[in-house]
């Protein structure tokens, strides 16, 4: 307990500025009223006009090209990356390590995307712009050289921070699309477990805040892996090696999930846990249909909002990035609906701040 209090006392010396910064940026997250206004727009130009009155300001109006959804998406992403790199470059350890951990997830996605791209004989130059800039690293372009996970590890990724996550993923089987997907999940499992134990070791409220968020993330992955594996030749045992072992489902829930063979059985597993019961429940008649992915997103937003209720911890940084990502998804969704004139679906975004 002494250690924890000490962490609180000295928190502001090193990280107070950045926490203040991130809380200020959080105040700029779009509210329900903003979404309401955005949803009324008829063209992207209107959306641009509306976003001008928010914290995004001149973000969209400074471009010379014509507005398109992909331009909006890339601008939003650019904005997020600018904010993140501002935080990262001012961070001191251990916050800098924490922020690096956030980027590893994006790195894994980038690696897997490059591998699948290389399998499809795509040009690296064409793939690189599609990588998430938060997960960028020097060796990225060379990923396509590797033929097997072992080669990938020993030749290319050994210098990157992803190397420790490869311990379980090393195998000599040829990389194909299925294998790449499995690699992604294995890396993610190792990453989440490592991040989880890192947060747990952190003093103060960081662990208290971050652990539930990461546990939720782990469980979500487990559910999604299970649901997606139906109809493929992935066996239950294979599956269980992909489940991150740091969530609330561990260990009993994961064992049951490994045995599940259809959607109903997954639902039965979820019903044992109060947090996930609602997600897999059938929608009430009359209410609009939401996929369980959307419900997971909703739940994630709720968890991330909670992080802002406490002070002196790193959770706010993670939560801010995740909330901002969700916001970008929302804006892009609305922009999609606006351009494709799908007004009826426009309200399927996930509100962040009521």
């Amino acid at each position: 307990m002494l250690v924890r209090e000490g962490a609180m006392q000295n928190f502001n010396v090193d990280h107070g500025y950045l926490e203040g910064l991130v809380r200020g940026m959080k105040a700029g997250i779009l509210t329900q009223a903003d979404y309401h206004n955005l949803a009324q727009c008829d063209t992207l130009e209107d959306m641009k006009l509306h976003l001008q009155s928010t914290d995004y300001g001149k973000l969209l109006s400074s471009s010379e090209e014509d507005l398109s959804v992909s331009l909006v998406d890339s601008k939003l992403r650019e904005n997020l990356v600018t904010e993140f790199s501002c935080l990262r470059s001012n961070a001191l350890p251990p916050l800098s390590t924490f922020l690096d951990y956030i980027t590893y997830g994006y790195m894994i996605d980038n690696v897997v995307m490059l591998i699948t791209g290389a399998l499809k004989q795509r040009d690296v130059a064409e793939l690189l712009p599609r990588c998430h800039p938060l997960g960028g690293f020097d060796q990225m372009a060379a990923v396509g050289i590797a033929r097997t996970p072992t080669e990938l590890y020993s030749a290319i990724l050994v210098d990157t921070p992803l190397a420790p996550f490869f311990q379980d993923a090393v195998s000599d089987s040829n990389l194909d699309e299925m294998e790449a997907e499995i690699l992604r999940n294995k890396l993610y499992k190792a990453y989440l477990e490592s991040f989880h134990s890192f947060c747990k070791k952190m003093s103060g409220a960081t662990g208290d805040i971050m652990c539930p968020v990461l546990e939720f993330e782990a469980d979500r992955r487990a559910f999604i892996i299970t649901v997606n594996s139906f109809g493929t030749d992935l066996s239950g045992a294979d599956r269980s090696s992909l489940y991150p072992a740091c969530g609330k489902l561990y260990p009993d829930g994961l064992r049951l999930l490994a045995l599940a063979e259809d959607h109903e059985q997954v639902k039965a597993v979820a019903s044992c846990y109060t947090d996930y019961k609602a997600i897999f429940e059938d929608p009430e008649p009359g209410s609009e249909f939401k996929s369980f992915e959307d419900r997971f997103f909703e739940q994630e937003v709720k968890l991330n909002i909670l992080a802002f209720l406490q002070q002196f911890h790193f959770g706010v940084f993670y939560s801010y990035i995740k909330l901002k990502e969700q916001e970008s998804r929302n804006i892009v969704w609305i922009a999609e609906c606006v351009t494709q004139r799908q007004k009826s679906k426009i309200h399927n975004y996930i509100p962040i701040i009521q």
Partner: protein
Amino acid sequence: MVFRSEEMCLAQLFLQSGSEYDCISELGELGLVEFRDLNPSVSSFQRRFVSEIKRCEEMERILGYLLREIQKANIAVPEEDESPLAPPPRQVLEIMEQLQRLEMELSEVAKNKEKLRRNLLELTEYTHMLKITRTFIHSRSRHEALGPQYEEFPTMETDSVSGCTGMQRLGAKLGFVSGLIQRVKVEAFERMLWRVCKGYTILSYAEVDENLADLDTGEISKSVVFLISFWGDQIGQKVQKICDCYHCHLYPHPENDEERADVLDSLRTRIQDLNNVLHRTEEYLRQVLQKASESAYTWVVQVKKMKAIYHILNLCSFDVTNKCLIAEVWCPVSDLANLRGALEEGSRKGDATVPSFVNRIPSNDTPPTLLRTNKFTSGFQSIVEAYGVGDYREVSPAPYTIITFPFLFAVMFGDLGHGMVISLFALWMVLTEKKQNKKRSSNEIWTTFFNGRYIILMMGLFSVYTGLVYNDCFSKSLNIFGSGWSVKAMFTNQNKTLQTNALLTLDPNFSGVFSGPYPFGIDPIWNMAVNRLSFLNSYKMKMSVVIGVVHMSFGVVLSVFNHLHFRQKFNVFLLFLPELLFLLCLFGYLVFMIFYKWLAFGARDSSQAPSILIHFINMFVMQGKDITPLYPGQMGLQIFLVIIAMLSVPVLLLGKPLYLYWLYRGGKGLRRRRGYERVRRVSEDDNSTAPSYEDDEEEGVDEVTNREFDFADVLLHQSIHTIEYCLGCISNTASYLRLWALSLAHARKFSTNNQFTLSFLCSNATLC
């Protein structure tokens, strides 16, 4: 400066379509009116003139780009004294076209220039690479030349004689990849190369002496030239990929020395050509920018004005026939004629067949407060506005602030010398204000000073005055008129006392010692006195309280004008009187005691002079039989005053709410009667257009009672006001003592400063 805020009226403007733009432009130049939003429910992008605003934004974007380029080229944008008028709508397209053409041209030239620059950089890199790789090859060939001398390597010779190595016999041939890489990436590059190619490559590298700019980012950094030799196509592909991934710039490696020399030669000429072309392009770009910079300022202002006009037009509503726009504005009554003139001018400019016109409409809304200022009063007005903007037609405190603010400052700052310095500085700012205004400095601290230049000037002048009163000039006294004190009279023939004592007491009771007061301010002899501080403290403390009470009473008296103007006579009796009584009975009496003590006790009986503080405290606790009264009947008067002050508090607290409540409940019968009277009166003077306001007092009361009456609400407001006022009186009186405290602090600080500097100079002098 005006006593009250300007009288306003609500007016409807009927702007004929076609000339509405010119009308608004004309109004904007004059700054006469405040527009009301007539379509608050319409969201900003559904309004009528959105497309025009978008066009303005597009122009702003281009202008921003243009200005950035101009700044990059280090060309100054000349600013004009007069801001240009908003362009007429038909000229807008012209400007737009001009801007777009400029943008196209600029981006074209910039793109070309960028391409050329990139080309040039590439060629420079190539030359560097060629020069450096030659040293690699040569050092290696020197090795080979030395080779035969070693007994260990005879096979080499034989291999080359037989024409090919083992690898070459297998069909794999020796390949070279050469290029440049950033210095920081070399280590990682080498490691990756080793790991991927398992050592089947030879990498040699050397740093480039010069700092080269990066091709993509233009950042200047150290680069390294490398040469990789490898066998086989498979590895070659891998090497290629790794080079791509580390963003190396690869250049073809020449086969032999002659080719190298040829390439170097051709590179040299090409670089020269490129430099020429680049130079010319830059020249041209500069010309274009120079021309653009001449009108850039005008464009920026014009586009800004245009955008503002369309924003205003968005606030207007259309009438049913769509023939004209209707705007609602608040306008000062005295400016209605100007408003009409501006509209006529606008219609004339817009070539409208039907002129636009103004229609005054009655309104129950509270109009906005307008206080006209000039460059002198605007500073003081902004000080007042920092506390809050008065209601419509309320008495404006700003005119009095012009005197009180600098004066209270000077009371604290009182020093002739320092005051002079400040006023000279302010005077300089005032005299050069035209020049400074033009400069438009962006330094925040400087603009604060500059905007307050008249305040500072007044503060300086008042400080000179109070400095004279305090007889302080750089913390020293001036002896202008000759001191009224003289020690001579006391010691006519006792020279011994004079010589042996460092300190002498001047007794004013001695005839001849005190010949009369100093004509102005404080006698300079006090500067030498040991008890100077206690004398000045007592004087300044009392003076602060006197000034404070006078200042506060003045503020309370000003409120009467508001009560009378808003026809709320009951407020005079229920608010103003108890407030004034409370203040004067307690603190007014304190002031009276101060003056009484000054007048009643002279030099002779000064030892019996009482402490006012004790008397004042005793007044509250209603004791003090044991000390001698200042004057006969003091006890009785004091008790009377305290009781009056205490009684005025409940009157202040309950008077207004109860009166209003009574009006609301019991006044109904009364009002019916008056209503009847009014009906009669209206029918009598039917031909008078507007209902006249001569109906005194009850009119205002009617207004008050007509609204929903919430007793608890009024009571709460009144109790907050009461508490604030009573506590405020006490704490403000105490706060005015700060005048003394800061004055003391200022004087002490500078006198010690003086001492230190003087003693420092003296010690230096002795050392020398």
